[in-house]
């Protein structure tokens, strides 16, 4: 059937299983929005306040569901407003397709109104991008974009469509959803080598990341850990794969990970890294990371092997395939002395914050959230101290329930991500945990939550300062608080009211509990302004470039 480009775009999106997109209209995408109007029964469009919110929402939707998230913006500023959201998805390997309109083909290159070369701008922050130059290529371009976004190590793909292409007509030939059937070949010798290295180890340790979340391989990993008696620690991107309460889990690793995890990496004789990348927030000092260990690296992306640290043995595979194939080769083992040593570190060295019901300590706030919300609650965070506390005391037991900008560290990510997750799962509780600094970046999206009646619960850990930077200033810059104390007078209860949401101000745990119970009635979006002390710090901490010897615990 002959259709115009805009209609073909809709058909091609529906063909790929898309039922929800996040976006914002504009001149260059008028044809696409006209087609969306006519196809509103097939694709739900969520209008955000700002294109950045749309990009983060598509990202949050993808993180919560595992499907490809889709966002749409017009040319020029619409497209550039997506950039932070695309980069955020890129750094965390999130499958996303971003669609931008552009000026008509004849106007390209003439500095036309709202023209920008978004393909050039997004080259380093996408897996690939396309400029559609012929309507005949449009449908296949959409298919390619979805294949690239979801295959291998996932990531964002951008499709830029000039306005005349959305009006030009051609035949649309349905081809069906792109099926991704990737297989990773691992030889018997490779599997045997890994198993032998594990069997030969007296002090083995596993460190895993987002790759385990992406392939939902937490259960299998725990099975392997139990079989060979190997403890593990996870990155911020792998929260919930294995609950932190598991005896074999040492919790989070890295700059703000547990002390026991840091010592386990320091003293282990074998470190198996699965689906992680030795980032500078984990391998704070790459020259002294796991100094006495042989290192095995399993990753889906060959380019990660030997990128940040040189490893002794590498397997290129997704986590699930690797774990499934290596399991029969793994011998049952016990490492009693090693486990006893770790248990000692846990009891003696792990940081235990003190409770105090009369104020709100961050760890108590997180505990209260876990107590008052269902187990399948999704937490989305912004970036800063609140994010690190949320990661440390996450309370998550399953994957895709902790949405955070780990790689890019995007303040302002959380609210959009929470909206995306709530749209994907209307019946589940979504809690957006933020700080007063991050929340100011994209709080405009309250209007979106109100428009679509999305009952997202935002908890602002309000310390009235830019806490994380301030903490570094306290520790490393002689308490010279340069631009981290903004003296804002924002009244979040009134703010909520002005947007048509509900707001609460709480200053102790009992009040927080009451507010959460009220919010759980789910009549609409809620903001909870939780007052915390401005000198609360994220501990423990290994400073950038430091090692376990530089650990700060008080």
């Amino acid at each position, binding site marked *: 059937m002959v259709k115009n480009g805009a209609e073909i775009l809709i058909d091609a999106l529906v063909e790929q299983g898309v039922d929800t997109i996040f976006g914002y209209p504009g001149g260059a995408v008028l044809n696409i929005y006209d087609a969306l109007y006519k196809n509103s029964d097939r694709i739900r469009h969520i209008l955000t306040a700002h294109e950045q919110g749309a990009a983060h929402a598509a990202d949050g939707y993808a993180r919560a569901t595992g499907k490809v998230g889709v966002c749409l913006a017009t040319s020029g500023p619409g497209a550039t407003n997506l950039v932070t959201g695309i980069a955020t998805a890129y750094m965390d390997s999130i499958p996303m397709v971003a669609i931008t309109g552009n000026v008509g083909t004849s106007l390209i290159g003439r500095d036309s109104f709202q023209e920008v070369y978004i*393909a*050039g701008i997004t*080259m*380093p922050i996408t897996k*690939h991008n396309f*400029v559609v130059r012929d309507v005949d290529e449009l449908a296949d371009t959409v298919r390619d974009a979805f294949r690239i976004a979801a295959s291998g190590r996932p990531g964002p793909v951008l499709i830029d469509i000039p306005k005349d292409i959305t009006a030009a007509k051609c035949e649309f030939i349905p081809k069906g959803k792109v099926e991704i059937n990737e297989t990773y070949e691992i030889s018997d010798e490779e599997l045997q080598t890994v198993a032998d290295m594990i069997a030969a180890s007296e002090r083995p340790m596993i460190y895993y990341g987002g790759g385990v979340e992406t392939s939902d391989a937490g259960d299998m990993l725990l099975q392997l850990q139990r079989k060979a008696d190997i403890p593990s620690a996870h990155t911020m991107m792998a929260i919930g794969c294995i609950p932190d309460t598991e005896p074999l889990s040492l919790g989070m690793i890295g700059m703000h990970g547990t002390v026991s995890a840091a010592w386990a990496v320091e003293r282990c004789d074998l470190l198996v890294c699965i689906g992680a990348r030795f980032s500078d927030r984990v391998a704070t000092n790459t020259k002294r990371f796991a100094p006495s260990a042989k290192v095995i690296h399993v990753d889906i992306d060959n*380019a990660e092997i*030997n*990128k940040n640290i040189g490893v002794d043995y590498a397997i290129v595979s997704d986590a699930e395939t690797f774990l499934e194939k290596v399991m029969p080769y793994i011998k049952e083992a016990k490492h009693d002395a090693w486990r006893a040593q770790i248990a000692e570190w846990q009891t003696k060295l792990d940081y235990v914050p003190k409770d105090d019901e009369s104020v709100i300590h961050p760890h108590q706030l997180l505990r209260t959230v876990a107590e008052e919300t269902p187990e399948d609650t999704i937490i989305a965070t912004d970036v800063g101290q609140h994010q690190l506390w949320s990661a440390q005391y996450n309370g998550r037991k399953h994957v895709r329930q902790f949405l955070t900008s780990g790689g890019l560290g995007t303040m302002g990510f959380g609210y959009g991500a929470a909206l995306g997750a709530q749209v994907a799962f209307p019946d589940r509780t979504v809690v957006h945990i933020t700080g007063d600094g991050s929340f100011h970046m994209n709080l405009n999206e309250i209007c979106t939550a109100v428009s679509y009646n999305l009952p997202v619960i935002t908890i602002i850990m309000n310390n009235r300062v830019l806490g994380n930077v301030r903490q570094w200033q306290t520790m490393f810059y002689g308490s010279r608080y340069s631009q981290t104390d903004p003296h804002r007078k924002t009244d979040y209860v009134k703010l909520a009211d002005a947007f048509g949401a509900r707001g609460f101000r709480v200053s102790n745990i009992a009040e927080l509990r009451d507010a959460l119970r009220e919010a759980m009635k789910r009549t609409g979006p809620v903001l909870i302004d939780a007052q915390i002390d401005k000198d609360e710090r994220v501990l423990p901490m290994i400073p950038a470039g430091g090692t376990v010897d530089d650990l700060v615990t008080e």
Partner: protein
Amino acid sequence: MEKYILSVTVQNNAGVLARVSSLFGRRGYNIDSLTVSATTDPKVSCMSIIVQGDHMVLEQIMKQLAKLEEVMHVVHLEEDSSCCSELVFVKLHTPDVSVRNDIRQLCDLYGARVVDTQESEMIIELSEVPSRIDAFLDVISNFKILEMSRSGVTAIEK
């Protein structure tokens, strides 16, 4: 710092050169030279890239290039298992006959040829492997070089 020659087969799409050079820029890899040329297939181009770095950097560059959607093959060409060549033009100041004769002698020694002669200038051309060109330029720099242009290397596997 070693120099390595990479031969990269790419889809001949608009923007592919920008994509490859953007990768080098973003990851901080050093390019000595980069040439793009046609192949027998109009949909495919060949890039010959000389990069600087150590073995780890070479491994990373090759893997990162291979990840690009439009890159079809990446081969590291060793000097002894490949043919590679580069073209250089050098414009020299030649105030008198004795200088010209000296230059002509050098040219004979290196297989360079004189392609243009003016009253007090001379343009010479040499097509050779990059290391020989470096050596030639080293010697010829005893004379007054007015201008120089190198093509960058092009290479093919034996």
